[in-house]
Every structure is written in C-alpha cells, then in structure tokens.
C-alpha cells in the first residue's frame, strides 16, 4: 500500500516485560518477521520470542582472542630469537615459559577489544538517530516503558490489520512511527 511507505512502522507499548514477551510471541506467531522490541533492560525470553541467537558475537570473541594470543607469542619469539638473539643470563633464546604471561594477556586484550567492537557493529552502533525516537513517548523506553515495533518493511505489514493484531496481542497503546519527524 502506498501510505505504508510513509511510516517506519507501528510502535506498540506494553504494560510490562511479561506482557511484552507474550505480545512478541503472538506477533511472531502471526508471521511478522521485521519485529523489534525496545526495553529498559534485558527482558528474558524476548530473543526466543523473536527467534534470535547471538552466536556471531561469541565467535568473534573466540577468533579475536586466538589470533591476538598467537600474535603475542610470535612477537616475543621474533624479538628474542630472530631479530636480535642475545644470551640473557644463559637462558635459551626461545624461553617459552617466560613468554606465557604476555601471550595470555594479549589473548584477553584482543578478545575483549574484538568482541566488543563486533558487538557494537552487529548492533549497528553508534546510530544516533532512529525513526522510533520520533515518537515522543519513546523516551520512556530507556527507563520504564516496554515497546514492540513492527516495521512497515515487513511483507505481511498492513496498517490496520497489524494495528489490530498488536492491540489483540495486549498492547495498551499503538502509535504510528513517522519516517521524518
């Protein structure tokens, strides 16, 4: 429909986290896929309701950690065996026990840096402006309001039917999200 294009989606507010989870389940049962919830804290069950698993983050952490750990060891090996081999107190050039601590630290550092950056990127952060914020009431989403938004780009999205579906799923209030404020 033509008028659907003008709005970003429908923002439904729910009374509390449990209502939200229930609502989310129903909405996705109804076959909506481009659905997102907005909550002041991590509400348990949402990701199940939205059929979402954050594996990617875990993988990024692992890979980053392993890479930077091995880089850490190689750095030490290169410095003390290849670049400038020196007799230090009669120790072997590749005194690997001495190289363990730094290898470990590098692993942790790389893992955390990579993982967190990955998490932010996957979350498309930083993103300072977002259509849902065009709804004045949305400001409460960061303190005590629980929202669910069905985006207009969803194939099944039809303004009135979706509105009805949302109300039916327990939303206490449904507002249209304009694209431009």
């Amino acid at each position, binding site marked *: 429909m033509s008028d659907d294009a003008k709005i970003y989606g429908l923002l439904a507010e729910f009374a509390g986290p449990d209502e939200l989870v229930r609502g989310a389940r129903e909405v996705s049962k109804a076959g909506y896929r481009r659905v997102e919830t907005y909550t002041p804290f991590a509400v348990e069950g949402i990701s199940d309701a939205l059929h979402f698993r954050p594996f990617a983050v875990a993988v990024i952490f692992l890979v980053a950690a392993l890479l930077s750990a091995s880089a850490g060891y190689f750095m030490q090996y290169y410095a003390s065996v290849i670049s*400038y081999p*020196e*007799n*230090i*107190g*009669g*120790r*072997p050039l590749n005194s690997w026990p001495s190289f363990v601590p730094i290898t470990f630290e590098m692993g942790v550092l790389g893992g955390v840096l990579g993982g967190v950056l990955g998490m932010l990127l996957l979350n498309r952060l930083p993103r300072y402006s977002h259509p849902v914020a065009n709804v004045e009431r949305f400001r409460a989403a960061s303190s005590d309001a629980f929202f669910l938004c069905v985006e207009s780009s969803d194939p099944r999205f039809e303004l009135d039917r979706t509105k009805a579906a949302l109300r039916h799923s327990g939303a206490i209030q449904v507002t249209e999200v304009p694209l431009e404020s």
Partner: protein
Amino acid sequence: MLRLSPLSSMKSLPLPPQVQIDAGGPRFWKSLEEWSQSPDFLPYLHREFPEYASAWDNGMSRRRFLKLMAASFALAGLTSCSRQPQEKIVPYVRRPEEIIPGKPLYYATTFSHRGYGKGVLVRTEMGRPTKIEGNPDHPASLGATDVFMQASILGLYDPDRSQTIRQGNDISTRDAFTQFVGARIEAHEQDQGAGLFLLTGKTTSPTLADQLQRLHERFPKLSWCSYEPAAPVRAQSILGHDAEPVYDLSKADIIVSLDADFLLDGPANLVLTKAFSKKRRDPAADFNRLYVIESAPSITGAKADVRWRRKPSEVITFTQQLAAAIAQGVAGDSPEIRQLANDLQQHRGRGVIIAGDYQPEVVHALAFQLNQTLGNIGSTVTYQEAQQTPIPTTSLPDFVTALKRRAASTLLIAGANPIYDLSPAWGFSNAMARVTHSIHLGLYDDETGSRCHWHVPGSHYLEAWGDILAIDGTPSLLQPVIEPLYPDAVSLVEVISLLVDLPPKKGYEIVREFWQRSLAADVPAAWELSLNKGVVAGLSPQALSPTPVVSVRDAPPEDLPNSSDLEILFRPDTAVDDGRFANNAWLQELPRPLTKLTWDNVAMISLATAKSMGVTTGDVVRLEAAGQSVDAPVWIQPGHADGCVSVTLGYGRSQLGEVANGVGFNAGLLRSSVAAWSQALTRAQATGARLELASTQHHFSMEGRDLIQIETLADYKTDPSQAQENQPNPPPEENLYPPFAYKDYAWAMSIDLNTCVGCNACVVACQSENNIPVVGKDQVFKGREMHWIRIDRYFEGEPEDPAMHFQPVTCMQCEDAPCEVVCPVGATVHTSEGLNDMVYNRCVGTRYCSNNCPYKVRRFNFLEYSDATHPTLALQKNPDVTVRSRGVMEKCTYCVQRIESARIDAQKEMRPIRDGEIVTACQAACPADAIVFGNINDPASRVSRLKALPRNYGLLADLNTHPRTTYLAKVTNPPTAI
C-alpha cells in the same frame, strides 16, 4: 679444623647477663652496640644503621648536594626524541709529531711524597693526563701504585688549586714577584742572609740540594728548616747516627711488626707489600709468618697471623721484654713473649723486627739490637746512612724561636703548612706576623699561605721539571706531562733559581744543567733514556753502607704514662695523609680499610674503653691533651687496644678547598711536637652532641656464611681442598639450561685473598679509569657510593679482638647472571665472551638488576653525580668510557675498554690476544698481585692455572650463578703453639 665461624665464636663468648636472659637459641651479633646490651647502650641499638631523622629529608640543602642539583637542572626534561646538536670539528693547525689523535701516550715521571719518590707512568689523551700507572722500572714502584699515586691525577685538576700570584689581597704578576725577589736579594746581600728564612717539607731532590748549596754559599747565614708533620722517627740519639732501615722481606720467614703499618704507609710500602705477598702466594712453597703488636688496627695487623693489641706504652714495654728475652735468653712469664722469642730464635737470620715509623726512639734502638743479635742485619734488613742534608738545617723549634726574635725579614715557605700542622702553643702565627716579607709557594693558598704577604701558585708534579730519590737512593726525574694549567704556577726549584741564578732559569734548564754535570759520559743519550725509563740511567743506587755494630744502652727510663692513664696516638690518615690530600674527593670518599668510614676522621677506641667512657659510635667527645682540646666523634673499633684513643691527622682544614674545608677535626692540635706520635691524654669527656658518620659497611660479621674461606697452613698441608669441602652449601652440579659456547675468549678473573692486603689501591685506580663519580658525604650516608670495586671487611671471633678479613668484590660476570634476566629493556646482556655487558644508553633505571644481584656490585646514579659544574674535572675523564648520567645503572665491566683496545691491536696484526696483554685497572694497581685477569679458554693462561688450584672457589657459588670471578681461599699461618 679450628676455624671459627662467627656463630660458634659467639657461643664461646661470655655474654652480658641481659643478653643471656633473652637469648633464645643461637644469637648473631649484628653490631657492637647490640652485642653489648648494657642499659646505656640499648638506646643506640639501631645505630648500626643511620638514624631516621637524618634520612627524612634528602639533604638537598647540603652544600655538595646543591652542586648536583645545579647540574641536574641542565638535564631535566631531556628526551630521547631530540635531534643531536650540530658538532664542530677543530683540527690542529700544526699537529705535534708524537700525537696521533685517538691514541694515548705514556710518559714516565715520579710521584714524590714526604720527600721520597715513587715512579709512575702517566697516560695522556691528546695532551691531557688521565690515568696514573706504576713504573715497573722504578725500584719504589715496581709497577704498582698506592692510593696517593692514583689519586694525584685528580689533584692536578682540582678546581680549588690557586691560580694566580697574590700580593696582599691583590692579584699580582710574575714580573712583579721577580722584581720583589730581586729587591730581597739586595737586602740580604748586606746581612749575608741572616734575615733570610727558608721553611720547606722534606726533600731529597739532588737538583734542589745543589741549588741550596749555591744559595748557602751566597747567603751563609740563612736558616733553613725542613720538616714533615708525618716524619718517621729514627733512633739517632741512642744509636748515635741516623740509620735508615731497608728491609728485604723476600728473605724473611718471621716478620715482627712493632706497630709498623709497613704494608700501607711509608715510602717503601709498595716494595714491602710485593715482597711480603710473594711469600704468601703459594702455601705449598715457603710461607712467612707475621706477628703484629699494635694499638690501632691497621691493614698490616689485619694480615697478621698473630696479632696482639697493646696501647702505645705497652708496645714499648713489650719490646723491652722481648729484647730482654732474646738477649739474656730468659723467657719472661708472658706466654706471648716466650712464644715469639722461640719463633725468632728458631729463625735466626730469617726473621725481621720492624719498628713502626711512629714508635719512639727506644723501640727503634731495641729493634736494631734485636735484629743485630738475631743476625738479621745483612740478610733481612740493612741499615743505611740516611740522606745527609746538603746544608746545615735548623730544627723547627729553633727556627720558630729565631722567627720570634724578629730576626726574619724574608720568610719563604714551600711545601709546608705550619699554621695548620702546629698547635697554637707554638705561636707560629704571631711569629709569622712579625716577618716583614713572607712568601708562600704551594698548590693551594692555604691556612699558611693566606697569612703570607705573597702567595705563588705551585706547579703540580705532573706540570713541573724536577728530580727526587727513591727510598733506596735511586734518583729519578720528574717531567711535565701537561703545560701548567695556570701559567703563573712555578716549582720550588724555579723559585730558588730566582735567588741563585742570574738570569733566573726555567725548570727544564735547571734540572737539565744539573744532570749535565752529574750524568754519565754520553749525556744526551743518558738523558733521553732517563726520561724514557723514569729512572736516572747509568747510576746504580748508592751502595748501602752496613753500619758498625753498636751496642744499645739499656733502654733509658722512658717517662711512660702509668698503665691506668688514657693515652692518645696520632697517625697520618690512610686517605688524606697529613692533610695534603684533604681536598682530593676520591680520597675523602675512599672507605678507610678497617672502618669503611668516609668523609671524616674519628677518635677510635675499643669497646671496653667506650663502655668505661659511656659513649658509643657517633658521640662527640672533647679530647684534651698538651693544653689543647678538640671535639671528635667516637668510633668503636673491634681490635683496638684498650685504654687509648687513636686519631688521624689531616682533617679540620679551614682554608684548603670546597672538599676539605670543615670536614673532620684537626687532631694535630693535640700533638706536643711534630715528632709526638703518642702521649698521655689529659681528659676525654662526652659533649652530648652526636655526629653522623658515613660508613659504607655497617655489618661486621659474616653471619656464618661461607663468603671468605679460611684455613690454617697446617690444615692446607694435610688437605689443600679442605676449604671447599667445608662449605655449608656446596654449589649444585646440574644446570637447568644448556650451556652457551664461548668460542674465542672467555674472560675471567682470580682474586687471591691470601695476598690481598686491603690497601684500596684498586678502588681508586678503578675510580680514575672508569670515570666513577664522587657523591659526597650525604649520599654515602644514604648508601649510594659508586665504587665499582669495593673491599668487603669482615670481623671473625670476639668483638674485642677479632680476626679481620678483606675481600675485594667486583662484578662477578656470572655466566648465568640473575641481573640480565630481569632487565626489561636488555640493557645488561651477555657477550659472546662471557662478559656481563652494561649498556648505559639503553638503561631506563628500573634498578631491578641491582635487587637481583646477590653480590650487590651494581651502582646507580640516583642523581646527577657526574660533576658538570667544574670544567677542569672534565679533563681527567677517560675518553674510552662513557660518563654516566642520572638514572642509569653502572658496574664493573672488567675494563672492557682495555679489552677492546687490546683486541683491536691484536686483530690488526691478525693474531690472538696474548695472555697478560689485557691488564685491568685494579690488577695494574695492585701491589700484591692479588688480582689476575685473563682468558680461561686458554688452559696455559695465568688465570686458568690459578683457577686450577685447590684453593679456588666462587663466591655464593651455591646460587648457581657461575661467577667468572673466583677467589683463592685465605691461608693463615699461626704458630702451632697457639
């Protein structure tokens, strides 16, 4: 084996009751104060270490510190990211023939001290003298040096040297002075020199003697007095002639020292040390035995196999008893005398009795008699006629009375400092005040100089022409190795020349002309040779005239103080001598051999005496003697004789220089005469004040650790390797790491604890070779002295009368060095030849290496210690060694600069480095040849052979550091009876 570990010796101690009460289990004694826990000592328990109050502030307010600050401001904010400033190259206009830029040159000249000469070789770098070495061709040096010779190089550059001629309070000129002297000559032509007074130190210069004779011919009535504040006593009045003993210790199996510190003091110390140590090098071969009877502990006493402490008067009675025992063969009731007499009787002709230079005449006479009756004269000792003075001299007292009689109109003082040396009782200053024209010639415008109408800067011996005799009479030349730093500076011969020559001559002409007359036929050649060798060629030392046997009258009734009295004895200081070196910072900061004290002189007493006086180390006491009194800090010294106080001369300077002024007290004030070396002490009472004393070693005992391995000769003969077997914790055999291969060379060092006499020569030699800074009393007090080689001193046995041991400790150059592993920037790493390199320019100063060094030989520049404020001092620096800046760690490098230059020479000739080609600074200086350096990859090298000896052991080898420097165990030779 009888060897006492401190622990077991403590068990054997009669401990004071307080100690026994709280003594749970075995007790170490940490320091004397702790050991003697009587109520009046308890407050001072912590005094083993410096006090807190003084350590609170960093002493920035103190004088020397300010100097450092000024320098460090210059470096503040230095970063490594700055580009280098544009440098200039300044080539010669006309390059002198002999100088190749970058290559050092060596010149032979002679260091003169108390009127006698010791030959030296001076290294000059593009015209500036930087290092003193001994002259092997000179009979009084034999290639070795003592602390004074080493430190004299710093004296040359001393910024406090006087630089211009002064008349009254105005700067004057050479011409003005010459005219003035001319006028004086005319005046004295009339009175034939009756009003001409000449006061000098002792001198044996042939040229000067010749000049004096000519002077005497010109002014027959002139009076000349020459004195030394530290002149040896001779038995002239008793023996009827001035007999100069010359000892040959290479023949002596039994050596008896009657309070003679012959290893450290006197014009023959180097010769005697060499001979003495030669007979202690190989326990398997002949091995001498040393008896020492002394009041204040000396290094000679420390080397003694049998040491008896006696106060001065008792030394005399002891000698008398011994003489009696030997003469009448009646063994007295004292076991010591009997024991010693036997030993001497058994070694007739192979023993020697050495009377201390500072003993009264009677002791010398008796020593002469003993040597005579024991048939030692001619073998171990010869008496030679002492140098006859060229012209009649006036004794000091007569001289002073003459001055007082207003007879003087002209007084020339050179090389003497009566105002400082003599106590006010002499009234020398008012005598001087009456003189109409007084002239002072000296390196410094000192206490005496400032009272003279004229002061003429004297030239340093490295700047002047001259000549001098060695103790055995061998003449040698002084040649300048640098143009006088200050053009006004003149030498004594040049000043005398003003009086006797018309026109006056330069030093070179004077000396050259004298030898022109006295040298062998081919003068130019002989002259060249003499300059080159440092010893006047073609002259054999004058034959010793064996003196006729003289019977000694029974010792005259000496007015000995009765035994209960407190006595005081004076000695020249082991570092600043009679005060002439008081402004030499190296010597001021040189830890004294037995006290490890720096920057001060003290009133040294025994523990018992301290208890009876109710004082402890650091308490200031007022000493009164000969109508004078001085305030002196007490120092309790193990092994000091009871009932006497020993003080050293040379301190309490008021007008010498920045370094010397206000340091210590002037003990000379208490002397009744310049020949008085011991006398009764009127009173000594605590003032209640305290003085912080900066000692570099606070701990006395070895804590039962196996640091110095000691065994008796008897034990050694039964089982040479006993010392190692008795180690409490032997070194582990296995090593976790695969050994590194040292292909070409493996540098190593061996230090023989048996021959080392602890004379400190190595310490100063190292300091001058390696640009080691002086840090000042406050910093030493905080424990920041910088010496790369230190001589550890330990006491073993009873605190009252312990055995004393020396152990020179340098960087051990460990093969598995703990310091290297912990350095985060690789500023200290191992070389392919086993050196433990210290890379100053990489060091960031974490000081971790120092913590991890079990030998604590690393030194840190806590502040900007290298003196940037005095330009002349920069001239002394060795250009082959980096001058370390603030915040950098440093340590002994085995004189790597010498290794590298030797390597480069060898490599140019495409040959390996020869054994003995590299001589480290400490090794070169050592008069006992206790230090040997070389390549242990070469089994034939000297060091390899020494390390193969059974006595060889590594310090703290149980830590598996594999030190490259190892020690040869100490072997003592006590008589079986004791």
